[in-house]
């Protein structure tokens, strides 16, 4: 499929852009931490770039507050295809501790619906829970998006027999 072929190039040098949509910046600091000596994401060729134009993977944090919504949509639109989004932290994945307040819209899943209405396609999404997500979890999520590692979690249903 065309996307996988394109992904083959991105796998070798994923340039990441950090998009904060109202997060408490614990996850943002852990993203920066993933680039520093102890975790060093540059082992996989990761480079933090300054403008969405240069980015392949968007590290998305924050529960998308109302004020930021139009600007986030415009920034995501500026990213050239194929767009990969890694939603990091419980704010981005499930809206976080303020998932139903008047001022946020509840994280990336809700934003994805709005993006679909606005006609902005996202090629691949990976959700990385954590509050904040550890630098290792962020690297694991990034490698999962790029196809280096397999997914560990899966849906679990336990029934209590009477």
């Amino acid at each position, binding site marked *: 499929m065309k996307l996988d072929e394109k992904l083959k190039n991105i796998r070798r040098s994923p340039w990441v852009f950090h998009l904060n949509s109202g997060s408490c910046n614990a996850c943002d600091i852990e993203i920066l931490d993933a680039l520093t000596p*102890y*975790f060093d994401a540059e082992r996989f060729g990761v480079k933090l770039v300054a403008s969405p134009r240069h980015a392949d993977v968007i590290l998305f944090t924050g529960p998308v507050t109302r004020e930021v919504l139009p600007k986030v949509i415009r920034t995501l639109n500026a990213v050239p295809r194929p767009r990969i989004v890694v939603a990091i932290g419980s704010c981005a994945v499930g809206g976080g501790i303020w998932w139903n307040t008047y001022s946020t819209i509840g994280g990336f899943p809700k934003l994805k619906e709005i993006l679909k209405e606005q006609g902005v396609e996202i090629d691949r999404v990976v959700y990385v829970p954590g509050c904040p997500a*550890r630098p290792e979890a962020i690297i694991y999520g990034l490698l999962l998006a790029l196809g280096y590692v397999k997914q560990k979690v*899966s849906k679990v249903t336990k029934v209590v027999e009477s």
Partner: protein
Amino acid sequence: MQVDKIAKLTKIVTIGLKTGRVTIKYPFGAPLVTESFRGAISIDNTKCWGCGACVLICPPNALSMKFEKDNIIIEYFKGRCIFCGMCADVCPANAISVTKEFELASTDLEDLKEYVIHRTSKCSICGKPIGPTSELRSVIKSQPVSEEYINLCSDCRKKLFAKAISIRFGAST
């Protein structure tokens, strides 16, 4: 003076080289996790009796309870969990244990969900659902209550109890 200033500049290189490479080999090596790390929780369905104490205390509502016709579903959504460990502290049955699991990345939200399904038992007289059967069983285990009383909803039990009292003390019916 100028020379030692430049010499001082190069000290950053010697510091870097002397400490050598501190990068851990993750994900092909061990992560930097200490023994008191709080990761994702796991609910032990043999102990849990569906009392809902954890659902009440969970700050981000990651644990929620749905009441369906004949079963009660406790849903644990890892995506919104903030890993505070309060549910493990308040659980009366010690059914919730905090694991060290942090590699929870997934491509689909459904994979982040964990369900514990309890059968609801019905009141033997009026048939109204009165709560998870495992809860009744644990009540029986702790206090010797007769089987007959336990399987009743609160109204029927009240009626039954009032009738028993009136018979005992001969009240005019």
